[in-house]
């Protein structure tokens, strides 16, 4: 028994409390996070659907009257999804601006397993500046969660709309069934994200179809905006899908299942078969898969004291979890250990409040109080098994961001929540429940509270998903939306963005990436050959701790569709100067960057790359630092993007300084290449006569200077390939070889082509490219 002889003095309030159960808090509600309106309260969830609310025309009515849980084949609750959609680009006029003169280089992307396309940085055909106007298509997905029957329905319909460049919205409506129409209808009372994506006030959902294959949800959104009706196909009965991995320390006991019927203290509603951690979560709508191989971790990793600190467990998670990444993912690592440093008073802990992406790791301590049945307990074995199982599900609940039952109003709740110290929930402490552990388990039916179920099933993913972090919204690019869309769009074509380079770039070194769109299916795929160079391509650069910006090309190509067929294994390739675009320099300062690429493939298809991670090193010396001001200009960006300029003198001068003062740098390779390229051939420029009339003039080539500069760029083919990319170095090789031919030195030209072919062959470049070089071009 406690001794509640408590007095308060000198404080702002007097407390006289008795018992061991915390009283419901009257604390002030904090303003919830997010940007939308909030539901004011959570309503109790019925265990089964009241008969009046069930569609009388369906078998669900009969099922609802049964004293058993809703038969899975009758329930219609679950996740529905619109087919991945690609919205049309925003039509805007395309002005044709004056541009720097350009060398006559073919810039078309080419297909074929053995042909990398030439660099996109060179141009051909009509060119238009987009002037900062977003013309890139908008990609998106949309899902609908219907929660009106099955196990403890919360009578809720919610949805998530994701647009890569339009933001994301999660909306929620509490619904009731209209007996006349059988539709589930209610006001949209919660929004998190870009409300403009679903401005309507009300949703009405009709569920049709019987089998899994024919099941559909037709949702009509009305009021507050144009009425919209959308059809969603049934996807799965689960509202979320998550992967758990269980590892055990060599001196610990692992418990992942429990049969409630093995202990006499239980309610009639408790499950009568063995519950596993996976089935306990599946029961409430969370689909669980298992990863890893149940590793056994040697106790020595806990250090000499053989107990675990949070940091030691975090280190073990990084080492042993097959899915470890410091980023949001629907996954968690569960460690079964013996004791925490705190000792036997700690039964388990969600230890992962370390690092950027938290709530990914949790531990259960088999040597703690959870393994000590009270004196006089008639069934000590099942008692311990029950406590260990409860602890495991409880700790995993914390990874979903579920707070303890008596803490709901603390911190920053996602919406106003009430403390529920008497909840019969995995998230309550049995020993704090009124009447204690026995009273708790005599009524506990192995589930979560209604407001917890509501949160697990319907709250925005950024609050629930393990490791979730505040997303970017400032620039409209949503990494969450990108990841969701990427996983929702498996298709025959796989898009990669890559560099042939260590991830660390020198300061001032331009970043040239290569794109590959590959047919990974066993059948041929029709595709527009220009897909990697036109409006269909979207690139986004994010700087860690900084901004997220869309890469906007200096030139746009208005090409007619050019259907082509990619056979299995074939790919389209292109190269892109990533460092800068019309929006300015995106990759310049030292730091870490991520690049995302997406291609609109037409007909509702899209391909999204995995993010490319880059690091820019600090300046190596004072010279590099001093030159930064001259290099990070829009003129130099233009010159690098177009592969050289005959008119941008300041840019050429800056690049010459880079080549001369930083001769061993990768930036010098680029500088020599773009200085040499315009000199390799005649070029047209627009000049103004003395009488003010404009005319096109020809600037003749300067082969000897071109030879000198391009030779300097290619003096080390491997080094050049690292920074220019395989496509870029192939192009530069051909250019220099042509200059050498012009100069009458066919031997040197042939030697260069062979040397380049050898180097590229060793780097794994496709045989077709190598043989073309060996065939002298």
């Amino acid at each position, binding site marked *: 028994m406690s001794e509640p002889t*408590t007095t308060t*003095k000198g404080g702002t309030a007097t407390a006289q409390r008795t018992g061991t159960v915390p009283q419901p808090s009257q604390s002030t509600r904090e303003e919830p996070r997010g940007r939308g309106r909030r539901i004011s309260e959570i309503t109790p969830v019925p265990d089964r659907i009241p008969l009046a609310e069930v569609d009388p025309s369906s078998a669900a009515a009969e099922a609802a009257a049964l004293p058993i849980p809703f038969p899975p084949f009758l329930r219609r609750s679950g996740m529905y999804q619109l087919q991945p959609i690609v919205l049309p680009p925003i039509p805007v006029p395309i002005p044709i601006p004056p541009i720097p003169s350009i060398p006559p280089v073919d810039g078309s992307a080419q297909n074929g397993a053995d042909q990398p396309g030439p660099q996109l940085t060179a141009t051909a055909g009509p060119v238009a500046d987009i002037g900062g106007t977003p013309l890139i298509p908008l990609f998106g997905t949309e899902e609908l969660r219907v929660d009106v029957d099955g196990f403890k329905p919360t009578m809720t319909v919610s949805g998530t709309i994701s647009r890569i460049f339009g933001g994301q919205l999660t909306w929620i409506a509490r619904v009731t069934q209209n007996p006349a129409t059988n539709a589930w209808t209610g006001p949209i009372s919660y929004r998190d994200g870009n409300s403009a994506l679903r401005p309507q006030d009300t949703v009405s959902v009709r569920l049709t179809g019987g089998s899994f294959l024919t099941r559909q949800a037709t949702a009509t959104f009305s009021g507050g905006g144009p009425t919209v009706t959308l059809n969603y196909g049934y996807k799965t009965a689960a509202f979320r899908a998550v992967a758990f991995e269980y590892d055990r320390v060599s001196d610990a006991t692992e418990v992942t299942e429990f049969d409630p019927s093995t202990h006499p203290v239980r309610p009639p509603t408790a499950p009568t078969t063995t519950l596993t951690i996976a089935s306990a979560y599946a029961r409430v709508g969370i689909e669980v898969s298992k990863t890893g191989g149940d590793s056994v971790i040697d106790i020595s990793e806990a250090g000499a004291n053989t107990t675990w600190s949070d940091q030691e467990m975090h280190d073990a998670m990084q080492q042993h979890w097959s899915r470890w990444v410091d980023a949001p993912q629907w996954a968690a690592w569960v460690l079964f250990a013996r004791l925490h440093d705190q000792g036997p008073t700690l039964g388990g802990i969600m230890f992962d409040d370390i690092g950027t992406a938290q709530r990914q790791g949790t531990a259960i301590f088999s040597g703690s109080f959870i393994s000590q049945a009270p004196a006089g307990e008639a069934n000590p074995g099942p008692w311990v098994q029950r406590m260990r199982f409860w602890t495991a599900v409880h700790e995993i609940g914390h990874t979903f961001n579920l707070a303890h039952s008596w803490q709901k109003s603390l911190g920053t709740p996602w919406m106003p929540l009430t403390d529920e110290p008497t909840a019969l929930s995995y998230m309550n402490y049995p020993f704090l429940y009124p009447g204690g552990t026995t009273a708790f388990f005599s009524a506990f039916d192995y589930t979560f509270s209604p407001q917890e179920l509501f949160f697990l099933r319907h709250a925005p993913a950024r609050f629930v998903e393990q490791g979730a972090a505040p997303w970017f919204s400032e620039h409209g690019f949503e990494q969450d939306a990108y990841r969701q869309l990427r996983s929702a769009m498996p298709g025959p074509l796989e898009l990669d963005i890559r560099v042939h380079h260590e991830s660390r770039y020198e300061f001032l070194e331009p970043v040239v990436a290569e794109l590959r769109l590959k047919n990974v299916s066993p059948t041929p795929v029709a595709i527009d050959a220009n897909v990697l160079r036109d409006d269909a391509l979207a690139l986004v650069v994010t700087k860690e701790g900084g901004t997220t910006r869309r890469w906007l090309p200096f030139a746009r190509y208005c090409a007619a569709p050019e259907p082509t067929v990619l056979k299995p294994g074939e790919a389209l390739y292109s190269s892109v100067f990533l460092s800068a675009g019309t929006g300015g320099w995106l990759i310049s300062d030292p730091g870490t960057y991520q690049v995302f690429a997406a291609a609109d493939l037409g007909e509702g298809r899209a391909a999204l790359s995995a993010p490319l991670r880059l690091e820019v090193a600090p300046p190596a010396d004072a010279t590099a630092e001093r030159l930064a001001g001259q290099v990070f200009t829009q003129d130099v960006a233009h010159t690098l993007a177009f592969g050289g300029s005959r008119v941008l003198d300041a840019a050429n001068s800056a690049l010459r300084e880079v080549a001369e003062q930083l001769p061993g740098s990768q930036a010098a390779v680029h500088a020599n290449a773009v200085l040499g390229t315009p000199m390799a051939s005649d070029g047209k420029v627009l000049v103004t006569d003395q009488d003010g009339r404009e005319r096109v003039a020809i600037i003749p080539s300067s082969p000897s200077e071109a030879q000198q500069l391009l030779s300097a760029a290619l003096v080390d083919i491997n080094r050049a390939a690292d920074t220019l990319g395989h496509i870029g170095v192939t192009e530069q090789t051909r250019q220099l070889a042509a200059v050498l031919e012009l100069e009458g030195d066919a031997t040197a030209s042939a030697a260069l082509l062979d040397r380049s072919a050898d180097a590229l062959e060793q780097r794994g470049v496709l045989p077709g490219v190598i043989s073309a070089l060996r065939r002298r071009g």
Partner: protein
Amino acid sequence: MTAEEAAMTRVQVFLENGFDHDEVVLRTADDEQRIENVTTRYQTGLATMVDAELPEHASVVQVAVPARMLAAETVIDPSRTPYVRVEATDGSLLVRADPDPPMYA
């Protein structure tokens, strides 16, 4: 070891819910401890655990959070209730002694 020291009994004080970067003062018998930066971890409902020595007979345990003008005390018999739990919720301090160790998860 003096006779007086031999008669001392160790108690464990658990600072639980409601602490947020607080300085907590714990006074027992002639001893005073100042514990800085006490913050509750939501995962467990526990901020930190402090050991204190008390005479075997009934003694006063005082807890204060000076910056929040909160203070509370309780009289405990450390041989019967060696576990002291402290909460700082709802604008007050709650101190209570338990015969059994608290449990967290």
